[in-house]
């Protein structure tokens, strides 16, 4: 191995290790969209003794399309993330068509939706998402910016 080749090999291995160190990796799912694009929460019953009693809920369909072309063949775990946007929590519970995993997520957390080898250039699925919250928002409208991130092995 020449001096230059060994340097390149060292650098390349350093980049690979750096990739794992740099977890998580934000994934591009800009082709995802919700139906409808905006939703209004509906009141839940006032009965006490239930979670989110007196709170609100909404349902939305999300067509997911995650760009994974840079990670094809790599192994890792993909999480859906809901950054905290205000003190009042939002809970999201979803089902899927099977490509991604169903799950539950609360503001400020992330939940696993895929584990294994990235199979192709995109990961697509359709989620039915139920959103719930208490009636303690600091405003009458808010924007929820979900995203996906990868922990590469």
């Amino acid at each position, binding site marked *: 191995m020449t001096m230059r080749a060994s340097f390149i090999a060292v650098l390349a291995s350093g980049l690979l290790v750096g990739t794992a160190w740099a977890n998580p990796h934000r994934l591009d799912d800009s082709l995802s969209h*919700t139906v409808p694009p905006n939703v209004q*929460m509906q009141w839940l*019953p*006032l009965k006490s003794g239930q979670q989110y009693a007196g709170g609100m809920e909404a349902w*939305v369909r999300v067509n*997911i399309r995650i760009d994974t072309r840079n990670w094809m063949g790599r192994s890792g775990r993909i999480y859906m993330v809901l950054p905290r946007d205000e003190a009042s929590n939002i809970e999201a519970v979803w089902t899927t068509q099977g490509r991604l995993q169903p799950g539950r997520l609360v503001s400020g957390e992330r939940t696993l939706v895929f584990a294994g080898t990235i199979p192709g250039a995109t990961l697509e699925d359709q989620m039915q998402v139920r959103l719930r919250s208490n009636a303690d928002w600091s405003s009458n*409208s808010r924007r929820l910016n979900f995203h996906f991130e990868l922990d590469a092995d």
Partner: protein
Amino acid sequence: MKCNLRRITARQAASVCLVVLVCADIVAAHAWSLGVTSGDRRLFLHVGNGAVSGSSGTLNGTAGTSGIVNTVQVTVPVAQLGNGTALGMTSDSTQSVSRYGDGNNTCPTPSSQVMVGAGFRRNGGSNSATLTVASPASRVNASGDTIPFTQISWTVSAPGSGVPNVIPAGTFNGGTQTLATLPGNTYIENCHTFSYANSAVRAAGTYSGRVTYTLASP
């Protein structure tokens, strides 16, 4: 990603690649996003008969009114005219089951009771809703004779409730009086049983008047 290492030092190369990696993460920062608005502010008031708003206590139904204007009445026997013994009034209400959605039999004898319930739904904030009742000064008969509305009082009850007097008992004052204040996302309800004080002899006739309950929020 391709790094050209021929004309730059190792440190420079690492720096270039690092910058590109950082940029790649920034470029990929797209995500699904959803605009969400809170539930509409809702006021719900029922006095006597009326339809529930929404299912199972959501108070989320279509805005509007329903039901009849209920009547409470009493006939004073001649032998008891003005003797100062209060007489219970009957009601044409048939509403016995709570509008809260829990199936509670709040007014087990609606023929002598009127169910009064109020609910307020809102997101955040500290605004409250206020339940008031307004009564005219007097009831009037066909001859123009009057009986003060202050002759009519009510007691309250709510079997199965831990707060049966959540709307308190009282006496009409011939004006507007506040009955209760509701914080957001609360519902209050109980039964009102009316009585006529019968404290003076009145001219013969049928005296009538209407009281109006109002729930309002800023």
